[in-house]
């Protein structure tokens, strides 16, 4: 069944009086106790992307074969991953953001398809391809039916009936006329759905907004900069590295009104700790990319936020890159784990940042525990100051040679690692509670960066720097690595060199296998302990989607969206400029367009029946 805007009747108006269990309790139970399903974009609230399923394991994964596949009908970059709830698989496409509900019990027929009507002009204000990182699911309660929530490119947030695809409600989360767009996957927490925005390259001010799932009404909105009533910070009780943030910290470190066009958009992943009752997410780059035009620390761009999901108030914050000079957005995944620090189990959040440092913080207090480079070539800062007595506590120690601010406007600062793409971007890592290791897809790219003066026009790009990017010099020649990371000791355990940036999200399973995709289009399976490659299959297009798994009628499946694009597709499609050309460099610098082509496709794998049944 097809449903369009015509169905935009507020069924939600027919709300029941008493709520039974809240959505998040049910969701949490589903995520923890029904490993056969994949009920939220991030796998579970802790963002593990780990599955208990173990039918496919490291001994038989080499026999994996394609079970079925499906074209999405859209050519652009396909980030994100499907959900599986019961017998139904749900996924969204890049612009125009069609949503499919596929019946797994019925030969994969399309149960319903939702096709939003959006003004195509929004395509022109999406900085880095028209990606969409997936839909969220809220289980039925007394107040609303089972609901799928879509965050459209034009910032319309739509609640659809999971059964029929009927529109339950629709709200406008931002103004695409000002360059405000959406790409991130919403997250359902406690009868609310949390939605972020994009547009840091258009001077959009970031915010995180919680909508009531029953009605679509705004419960709270927390901006990334501004006075306290906009940022939802308490001058005394909200802390930064253990100290109260003070009054209006979201304007105090900006000059004049620059914060109003100051960026800090919230386009990454959201995690949630039900016990501490805190949600975690990161904020993006301050705008413009010309640091000279925005003196100060530019709080709270580039920040990890821990907020109360009921009212949005922040408990603690940590700004990783004060006064960004390189476009190192802080939006990457926030993985929640309980790790052993010298015999003491600590509740931590682990965050591999764009800036090349992987951070481990106490997720209750925001105390900084570990900040180490997860690519040894990271050079813009020597280290993060860990001494609480130092006035530099928590701040990266910037190397003058790679400071685009100290280099100044109209000066090219060369050889900065990582590039603006970051040591990783949004492509989410996986965590295994067995090995206690983090499996991180990374970029291995450096850059030259020349900032210059720009003027602001609403709805127009507001960039202010010229960049060129190239594979990390004097390394293995490739533009990516896939690594296993020890977040207690801050060490790389193993690292697999990759020809292109690994722009796909990882999956870890109880079968002791880790999966990820590559820009050439491979789905790869590697041994969780050693990183040894066990299987590869070349799908129809480059993979920038996240690998997921589910079970149906006793069989385990692995699914991934192909469809090259995203920032990686734009930068790498034609090959990056090669500083070492003529010095015998080969292979690694070839252009991605020699390897793959546009095209959205879902590919689903399983074991041959005789292998599966012998398990």
């Amino acid at each position, binding site marked *: 069944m097809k449903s369009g805007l015509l169905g935009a009747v507020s069924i939600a108006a027919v709300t029941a009086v008493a709520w039974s269990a809240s959505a998040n309790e049910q969701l949490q139970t589903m995520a923890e106790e029904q490993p056969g399903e994949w009920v939220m974009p991030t796998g579970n609230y802790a963002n593990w992307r780990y599955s208990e399923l173990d039918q496919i394991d490291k001994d038989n994964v080499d026999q994996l074969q394609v079970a079925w596949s499906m074209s999405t009908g859209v050519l*652009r*970059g396909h980030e994100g991953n499907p959900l599986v709830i019961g017998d139904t698989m749900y996924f969204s496409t890049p612009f125009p953001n069609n949503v499919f509900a596929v019946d797994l019990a019925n030969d994969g027929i399309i149960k319903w398809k939702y096709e939003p009507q959006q003004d195509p002009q929004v395509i022109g204000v999406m900085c880095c391809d028209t990606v969409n990182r997936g839909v969220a699911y809220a289980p039925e309660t007394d107040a609303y039916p089972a609901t799928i929530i879509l965050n459209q490119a034009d910032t319309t947030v739509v609640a659809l009936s999971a059964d029929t695809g009927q529109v339950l409600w629709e709200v406008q989360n931002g103004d695409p006329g000002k360059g405000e767009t959406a790409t991130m996957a919403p997250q359902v927490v406690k009868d609310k759905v949390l939605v972020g925005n994009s547009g840091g*390259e258009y001077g959009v001010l970031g915010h995180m907004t919680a909508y009531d799932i029953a009605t679509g009404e705004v419960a709270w909105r927390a901006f990334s900069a501004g006075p306290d009533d906009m940022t939802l910070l308490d001058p005394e009780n909200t802390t930064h590295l253990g100290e109260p943030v003070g009054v209006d910290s979201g304007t105090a470190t900006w000059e004049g009104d620059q914060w109003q066009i100051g960026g800090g958009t919230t386009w990454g992943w959201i995690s949630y700790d039900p016990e501490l009752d805190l949600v975690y997410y990161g904020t993006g780059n301050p705008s413009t990319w010309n640091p000279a035009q925005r003196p100060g620390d530019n709080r709270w761009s580039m920040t990890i936020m821990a907020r109360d999901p009921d009212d949005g108030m922040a408990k603690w914050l940590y700004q990783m890159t004060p006064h960004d000079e390189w476009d190192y957005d802080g939006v990457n995944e926030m993985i929640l784990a309980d790790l052993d620090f010298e015999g003491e189990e600590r509740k931590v959040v682990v965050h591999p940042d764009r800036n090349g440092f992987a951070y481990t913080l106490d997720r209750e207090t925001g105390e900084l525990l570990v900040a180490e480079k997860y690519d040894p070539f990271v050079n813009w800062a020597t280290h993060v100051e860990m001494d609480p007595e130092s006035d530099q506590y928590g701040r990266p120690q910037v190397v003058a040679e790679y400071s685009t601010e100290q280099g100044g406007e109209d000066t090219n600062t060369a050889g900065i690692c990582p590039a603006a793409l970051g040591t990783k971007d949004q492509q989410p890592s996986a965590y295994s509670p067995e090995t206690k290791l983090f499996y991180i897809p990374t970029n291995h790219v450096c850059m030259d960066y020349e900032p210059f003066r720009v*003027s602001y026009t609403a709805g127009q790009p507001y960039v202010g720097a010229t960049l*060129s990017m190239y594979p990390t010099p004097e390394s293995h020649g490739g533009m990516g690595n896939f690594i296993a990371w020890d977040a207690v000791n801050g060490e790389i355990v193993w690292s697999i060199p990759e020809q292109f940036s690994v722009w796909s999200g990882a999956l870890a399973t109880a079968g002791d296998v880790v999966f990820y995709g590559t820009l050439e289009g491979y789905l790869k399976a590697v041994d969780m302990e050693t990183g040894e490659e066990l299987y590869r299959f070349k799908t129809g297009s480059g993979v920038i989607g996240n690998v997921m798994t589910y079970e149906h009628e006793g069989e385990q499946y692995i699914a991934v969206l192909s469809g090259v694009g995203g920032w990686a*597709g*734009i*930068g790498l499609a034609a*090959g990056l400029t090669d500083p070492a050309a003529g010095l015998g460099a080969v292979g690694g610098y070839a252009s991605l367009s020699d390897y793959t082509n546009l095209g959205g496709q879902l590919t689903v794998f399983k074991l041959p029946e005789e292998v599966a049944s012998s398990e």
Partner: protein
Amino acid sequence: MMLKHAIRGVVLAACTAGFASAQAADPTAVENDAGKYFDAEGYPTFNIAEDGTVDFHTYSGFRRFNSECHVCHGPDGVGSTFAPALVESVQDMSYEDFVAVVAGGRENVGSGNQNVMPAFGTNPNIMCYLDDIYIYLRARGEGDLPRGRPAKKEAKSDVFAEMEDSCMG
């Protein structure tokens, strides 16, 4: 203000040329007006010296292109998964058409296609440097300017500096 600059460019070029050519003209520079070069038909063009030194407009175009356009058209104009290779386009396209597409945008959306070239007519960061971007792309497409940052450039002229100040406001 920035619109005036661009439109003046078009009118000027059209007058000098007498007609709007469908094809780009021979890019050889025949005239140097305070560091800005023009071809025989009066269209802005590049000048690359034997030792690789580029005129300042080519350099300025390199900077602006790789800030404002590369996110869709790929680094150095070589194209991407998202938008065409402009180093090719400028060879088949008139100056007037180039200016018109950048100022007014273009939409090519239908079955299979989701191509939107935004309209930049109100954006001084682009319109004030549109000739430079055009010159740069010609140098890449029709000249022998390699990818990447030009190693050597002519100095910024006073005329350029004045123009920049008045256009950017």
